[in-house]
């Protein structure tokens, strides 16, 4: 096989690029974007239905669209894109050939078939069970089968990644240790294996149950294992998008992380303290002890959160250090003001970092606190939180790196550069709105996954406060903005891939590597220190405000 491998040399990095790996990256990225378009469309329909003044879809279509939305974006879009990242971080960054490209294509094929099958199942109408498919609510067998096929495909992709690391090491295609970005991708792939194993443990019996071969599945056991998959896969996303942050900072600004040791240890924390993170989906569930809940919801004392907080400093810190190294030294924030805000790869990455920390991160820790969950569980606060993590964080980071993948891998120049420049901002404002207004409505008690907040068809009535209706109106407007940002992204990507000019050596970005900042003691990042201090203050205040809210509800014991 090795002899058949063909390479080209990348003019930007000087690395050899395995053409087979390149094609796989393209295929996975294209599939990802297609499903983002489909899933985003369903998201818009859902957002407009939840806008009380518009109330677009009838009830059955709303629940169907919500099921499709969750599956297509959270699972299909993100995981296809992660496959592209895994191949990029292994074969390309390690200057190596891809191990077993045929296996990789098999994996890709299974993922495509699985994704199509699950979409068919949902669109047929008999599987409106939400992407979580909590038993004893039952979907058609091919709903579970589609997800299982998709997961098996992804698992194959992970093993191709591991295999490539081995090949690269044996064939000595790089010196020393693997790059930090590859290390982050390795973290993601290791957690993905755990994730998919949990998925198999729960979904295979559920498939048999829906075929009538197993008579009963315990609802609590299902949720515990389902979320061992569902939550760890979010840890995969975090590892992947943090790796993407580092990659963009490096490629666009030549930034070098402040300390490899700290950043790598932070990635390791994700693996070591994964625990049963399904716990924070089970905080108000019956019959689970508080000891178990507390230990596992904090992943044993918040050590994985520690990992994210570390990256939250080292990523902007490395950018600041790189910019200062170039002489942007005035005041606290000249380095940030004069950052390449017109480059969508950079702006998308930085907005992703800020919103993931401030919106998704803080709210996630708060609602993952054992008792605080009582005032948030299954309200709209929950989707508000995770649009701050998987959309503002992961999705936006993946969008940002697409603007580098198109010239480097597809070898096309971006079309509609102005639209590309605005895209991260439009999408960010929309998603920030979605997150914050859903969190606001949730704080006022509005239920998630709910077609009618006026309860018009209910035998007994209840009125949510006026402010909640206002929130959902603003949420609808934000949904339109977010969808617009999504359409801009898809237009630029499709346009560039199909019609973009071929890149030339001149048009490609130049890597402007900063070898070192001097010794550890001389690194100065005062701007980052201020940003981190603001973040920390916001975190502490918001955390304790929620304890105050909790203390005002009815005593429970």
């Amino acid at each position, binding site marked *: 096989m090795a002899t058949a491998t063909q390479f080209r040399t990348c003019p930007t990095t000087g690395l050899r690029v395995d053409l087979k790996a390149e094609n796989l990256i393209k295929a996975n990225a294209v599939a990802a974007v297609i499903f983002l378009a489909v899933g985003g469309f369903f998201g818009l329909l859902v957002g407009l239905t939840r806008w009380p003044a518009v109330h677009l879809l009838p009830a059955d279509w709303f629940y169907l669209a919500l099921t499709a939305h969750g599956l297509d974006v959270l699972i299909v879009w993100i995981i296809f894109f992660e496959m592209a990242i895994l191949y990029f971080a292994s074969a390309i960054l390690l200057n190596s050939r891809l191990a077993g490209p045929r296996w990789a294509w098999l994996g890709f094929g299974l993922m495509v078939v699985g994704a199509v099958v699950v979409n068919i199942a949902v669109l047929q109408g008999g599987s409106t069970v939400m992407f979580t498919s909590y038993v004893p609510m039952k979907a058609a067998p091919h709903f579970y089968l589609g997800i299982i096929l998709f997961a098996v495909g992804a698992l194959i992709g992970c093993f191709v990644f591991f295999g490539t690391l081995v090949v690269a090491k044996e064939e000595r295609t790089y010196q020393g240790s693997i790059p930090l970005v590859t290390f982050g991708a390795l973290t993601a792939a290791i957690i993905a294996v755990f994730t998919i194993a949990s998925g198999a443990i729960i979904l295979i019996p559920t498939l048999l149950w829906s075929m009538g071969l197993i008579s009963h599945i315990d609802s609590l056991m299902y949720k515990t294992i389902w979320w061992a998959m569902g939550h760890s896969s979010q840890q995969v996303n975090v590892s992947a998008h943090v790796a993407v942050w580092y990659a963009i900072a490096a490629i666009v600004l030549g930034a070098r992380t402040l300390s490899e040791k700290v950043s790598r240890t932070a990635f390791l924390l994700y693996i070591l303290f994964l625990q049963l993170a399904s716990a924070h989906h089970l905080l108000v569930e019956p019959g689970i002890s508080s000891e178990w809940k507390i230990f596992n919801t904090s992943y044993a004392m918040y050590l994985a959160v520690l990992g994210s907080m570390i990256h939250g400093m080292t990523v902007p810190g490395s950018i600041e250090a790189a910019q200062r190294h170039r002489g942007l030294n005035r005041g606290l924030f000249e380095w940030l003001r004069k950052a390449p805000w017109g480059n969508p790869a950079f702006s998308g990455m930085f907005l992703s970092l800020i919103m993931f920390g401030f919106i998704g991160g803080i709210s996630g820790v708060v609602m993952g606190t*054992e008792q605080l969950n009582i005032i948030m569980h299954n309200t709209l606060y929950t989707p508000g939180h995770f649009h701050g993590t998987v959309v503002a964080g992961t999705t936006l980071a993946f969008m940002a790196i697409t603007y580098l993948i198109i010239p480097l891998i597809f070898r096309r120049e971006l079309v509609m550069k102005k639209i590309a420049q605005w895209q991260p901002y439009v999408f960010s404002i929309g998603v920030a709105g979605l997150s914050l207004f859903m969190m606001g409505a949730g704080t006022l008690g509005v239920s998630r996954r709910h077609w009618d907040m006026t309860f018009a068809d209910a035998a007994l009535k209840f009125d949510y406060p006026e402010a909640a209706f206002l929130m959902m109106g603003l949420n609808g407007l934000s949904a339109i903005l977010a969808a617009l940002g999504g359409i801009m992204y898809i237009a630029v990507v499709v346009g560039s891939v199909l019609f973009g000019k071929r890149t030339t050596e001149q048009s490609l970005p130049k890597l402007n590597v900063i070898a070192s900042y001097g010794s*550890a003691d001389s690194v100065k990042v005062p701007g980052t220190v201020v940003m981190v201090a603001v973040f920390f203050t916001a975190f502490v205040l918001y955390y304790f405000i929620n304890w105050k809210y909790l203390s005002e509800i009815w005593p429970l*014991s």
Partner: protein
Amino acid sequence: MAVVPPTERIWWKERIAKVEIMWVAIAFLWGLVMFFMMIYWHGAGKQNISNEAYRTDPAVFAQKAQAMAEQYKVREEAGIPVVHPPPGSDVYLIARLWQWWPILELEKDKAYRLHLMSMDWQHGFSAQPVNLNLQIHPNYDMVLTVTPDQAGEFGIICNEYCGIGHHTMVGRLYVKE
């Protein structure tokens, strides 16, 4: 640079900048604070879930609810009995497609042992506008001691998706002075 191998081969022996060490220390301590806060609240706070639960057959649970409703029924609303059980007693609330049954009438500042269970799929108990949310499973009788400290009329919204009638699953709860 993050996309090329580290310059120092032995990266785990590298020296670390002071700002980084400081932040790692602060973030670690904050993690401990948050961890112990949950434990502290079990002692000092008033809002904790008992985690008491029993595997129960839905029919058995329904029978208990039925018996309570017959004994303490005070009136009816929308065809659902309004039940005023004595303070301190065991009160039962059934969650089923798509109804909360019966309507409970409790007394302010009195404690009740509230039993919650689903007869079919999962449901979400969401007492509004208190904003008190619990997950309700079939086959698990979930018990908590609740002491309503506000009088008034409260809605019980189902906030776990439970099929096409999910948005009609609204119950009621009264708390009397």
